[in-house]
């Protein structure tokens, strides 16, 4: 009778592979991390924090976002209260240029280095791109040197080139979930269409921001699949959202992701993406509360969105800035690159 081969602990593997060599975990390894029992979460988060410090440094990147065009979107992303296809209470709204300038100023005053202009559209039309162009020009004329990112849906090559010419340095386009789960979440366009936009962004020299939402009915295996698909993309930033079940959307009755599960996800994504900016984004207030947010910051996160989101409210920016100070985490300065 031969002895069973000794099981190698996934966190031991991660210590050698990710922390020492900077090589992200494989899909099978990420799944093992996502299946760790609750009593191993502190160990996971401590390792993820070490990985983040080793490969990204101690700074935290702070960002603010604003919705330039709200609601009335033709797409059917099932998590989104801005889709025109669902009976959501969110009505269409456009932010004018002075409003955009004020939002950018509010964001810069928090010490943030990133300001993301977002529109609920399939892709930008001439009117929207013109509004973005005028907005960026007015933000600069206001003396605001914050770095500007955009999230305007799927792009053509011509539109990518226009955004580069406007000085947009980073573009957000989330893959949202694993490729195998995407058709359950969105039916009006494909995961591959999103991937194509991301490739154009990268090829044009813009930074790529691409993440998704946890808690949309995906299995743990699909969550691991998603982490590794993101790693294959090599994005500069991954925003990690947790589902906010918004009224009128197909997911309005989905449960909020439980705190321990969310923390395991944060740790696992850090171990899959050791060198990427991993940002706390929407839903953390419901999922974590105050205590969990600190645990996440000490568990691999190195960027946050401060203030409000697009249609939902966040914690006051000051509260998050105080949390960073309490954790002795320096805010990234404008001249730095993580």
């Amino acid at each position, binding site marked *: 009778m031969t002895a069973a081969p000794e099981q190698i602990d996934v966190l031991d593997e991660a210590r050698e592979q990710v922390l020492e060599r900077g090589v992200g975990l494989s899909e099978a390894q990420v799944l093992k991390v996502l299946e760790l029992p609750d009593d191993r979460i502190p160990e996971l988060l401590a390792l993820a924090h070490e990985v983040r410090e080793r490969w990204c440094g101690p700074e935290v990147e702070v960002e603010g976002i604003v919705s330039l065009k709200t609601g009335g979107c033709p797409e059917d992303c099932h998590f989104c209260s801005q889709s025109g296809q669902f009976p959501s209470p969110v009505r269409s709204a456009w932010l004018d240029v002075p409003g955009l300038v004020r939002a950018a100023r509010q964001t810069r005053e928090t010490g943030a280095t990133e300001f993301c202009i977002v529109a609920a559209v399939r892709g930008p039309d001439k009117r929207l791109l013109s509004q973005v162009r005028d907005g960026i020009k007015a933000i600069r004329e206001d003396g605001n040197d914050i770095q500007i990112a955009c999230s305007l849906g799927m792009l053509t090559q011509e539109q990518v080139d226009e955004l580069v010419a406007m000085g947009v340095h980073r573009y957000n386009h989330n893959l949202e979930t694993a490729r195998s789960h995407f058709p359950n979440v969105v039916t009006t366009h494909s995961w591959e269409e999103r991937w194509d936009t991301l490739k154009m962004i990268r090829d044009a020299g813009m930074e790529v921001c691409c993440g998704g939402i946890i808690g949309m009915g995906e299995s743990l295996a699909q969550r691991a699949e998603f982490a590794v698909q993101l790693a294959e993309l090599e994005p500069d930033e991954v925003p990690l959202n947790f589902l906010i079940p918004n009224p009128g959307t197909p997911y309005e009755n989905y449960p909020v992701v439980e705190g321990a599960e969310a923390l395991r996800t944060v740790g696992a994504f850090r171990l899959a993406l050791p060198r990427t900016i991993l940002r706390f984004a929407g839903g953390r207030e419901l999922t974590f509360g105050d205590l969990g947010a600190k645990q996440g910051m000490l568990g691999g996160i190195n960027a946050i969105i401060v203030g*409000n989101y697009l249609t939902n409210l966040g914690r006051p920016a000051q509260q998050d800035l105080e949390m960073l100070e309490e954790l002795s985490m320096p805010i990234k300065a404008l001249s730095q690159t993580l």
Partner: protein
Amino acid sequence: MTYCSFCGKDDADGDHAFCRQRLSMIDPPRYCSECARRMVVQVTPDGWAARCSRHGEITSGR
């Protein structure tokens, strides 16, 4: 009669504890409390403004 700003139903009808929790944490008002019309809401990094076509605008500052 007043209406719940989260779900738009009669404030006196049913339990609005969940609505109040959402409004206190992550949601701006979506329905006018005077007439239950859906409002046009603009969220900004440090506040929100909600406009009812009949009863005017309210903001997070007021």
